[in-house]
């Protein structure tokens, strides 16, 4: 069965500092990995995904994620955090079929 884990419920970072939101996955076969962001009282917005190829994936709003097969990780990163990046972030995996599995979410707070 496929699954993802987001080990941190909460991440706090100062504005202008780099941020990392962690994600590890478990899947049989090749994984398709996704990051979504959710602002208060809104649905999930797609940020980026890894399908194949370059391990560093660039996405929306300056975010990027690094796929590491040996560590089964797909951490979300941004070089310089903004207060407006404060939101709930979800990692997801889709290995086969049409089903997508989500982590529990990590709440990112960026302080001025």
């Amino acid at each position, binding site marked *: 069965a496929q699954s993802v884990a987001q080990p941190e419920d909460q991440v706090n970072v100062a504005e202008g500092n780099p941020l990392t939101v962690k994600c590890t996955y478990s899947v049989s076969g090749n994984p398709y990995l*996704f990051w979504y962001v959710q602002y208060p009282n809104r649905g999930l*917005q*797609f940020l980026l995904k890894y399908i194949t190829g370059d391990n560093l994936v660039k996405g929306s709003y300056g975010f990027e994620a690094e796929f590491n097969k040996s560590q089964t990780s797909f951490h979300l990163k941004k070089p310089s955090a903004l207060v407006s990046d404060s939101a709930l972030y*979800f990692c997801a995996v*889709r290995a086969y079929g*049409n089903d*997508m599995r*989500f982590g529990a979410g990590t709440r990112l707070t960026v302080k001025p």
Partner: protein
Amino acid sequence: DVKVTQSSRYLVKRTGEKVFLECVQDMDHENMFWYRQDPGLGLRLIYFSYDVKMKEKGDIPEGYSVSREKKERFSLILESASTNQTSMYLCASSPTGDSGNTIYFGEGSWLTVV
């Protein structure tokens, strides 16, 4: 632009009522999904549909049913609402054929059962 529309954003229903949550997508996607989101639990799949009149149970189908009579519309039905079904419900859609296809979400429906 991709558009998944959930017609009801906020609902308050009484225990035992029958509840319909409607979702429409305008992207001609084959796959449609209903998720439930609860704090600390992330998103859990209730049902999904890969074609008209086709459906598959997800992880938590108990107490729910679905209907897909047209490709663009996917309805979630709570036959007899209970307080433990108070939650945020998210509809989503995606093309079929490739697991790398992105799933697109609606804005969510907040349901409170009293």
